[in-house]
């Protein structure tokens, strides 16, 4: 098993907070070597997660001892929960609705089918409102499209089965967003 980073990865995460998508959080919890590699890359900064991500991480686990382990894992200071209150939720919801319109318009232009999951679109909207010091790590790049997000790095993990799984390090690009927002043609303006 091994971890493979692209040449930009280390530079991209320097001084940044990494917001975790559930797939990467799950990978950290299931793979010691990935966890140890990532904690070295992060230096002084913790991973951060949104409450929706922790919800996904904890749901559908039917073995009680596993639930306890997952809760203990989340409680450690290396993983930091983002603040959550009504004002933040309202802003996140507004951003999510705008993003969903942009996704629908652009996916139609690109002839792409399907839409982002509820959690991923909220995670994308959360990233919008967090500022440039935050990056998102996700294995589901298609829910965070190029017309809004920039890829800053890739980490590839060789799993126990030998399969290679890649995770993207993404940043929100306000200029790309502004362009898409304008192209909505009055919807949402």
């Amino acid at each position: 098993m091994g971890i493979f980073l692209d040449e930009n990865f280390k530079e991209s995460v320097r001084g940044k907070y990494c917001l975790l998508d559930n797939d990467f959080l799950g990978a950290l919890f299931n793979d010691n070597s990935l966890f140890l590699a990532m904690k070295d890359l992060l230096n002084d900064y913790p991973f951060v997660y949104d409450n929706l991500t922790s919800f996904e991480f904890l749901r559908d686990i039917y073995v009680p001892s596993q639930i306890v382990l997952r809760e203990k894992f989340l409680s450690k200071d290396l993983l930091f929960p983002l603040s959550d209150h009504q004002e933040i939720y309202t802003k996140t919801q507004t951003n999510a609705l705008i993003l969903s319109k942009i996704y629908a318009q652009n996916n139609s232009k690109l002839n792409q089918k399907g839409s982002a999951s509820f959690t991923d679109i909220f995670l994308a909207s959360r990233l919008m409102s967090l500022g440039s010091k935050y990056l998102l790590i996700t294995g589901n790049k298609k829910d965070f499209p190029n017309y809004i997000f920039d890829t800053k790095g890739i980490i590839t993990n060789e799993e126990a089965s030998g399969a290679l799984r890649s995770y993207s390090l993404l940043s929100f690009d306000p200029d790309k967003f502004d362009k898409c927002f304008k192209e909505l043609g009055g919807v949402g303006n």
Partner: protein
Amino acid sequence: MTNKFKNLKPYIVRTSENNAYTIPKLVRGEKRDKMISEMVELIKENKKIIDDLKSSSKPDGYLFG
């Protein structure tokens, strides 16, 4: 009738100096090493549970079914 969805304004933090939330830096030294060891132990315990589940046709601990 006005369309309340027409006036949506995105909320974006645009500069690195004006980040929305400040998060404390990680603890350092022995405390950090201890925390990481504990997390590694949790990962190992979880792996053991998964391995046990795979090797047993009737695992303990089902809440349902």
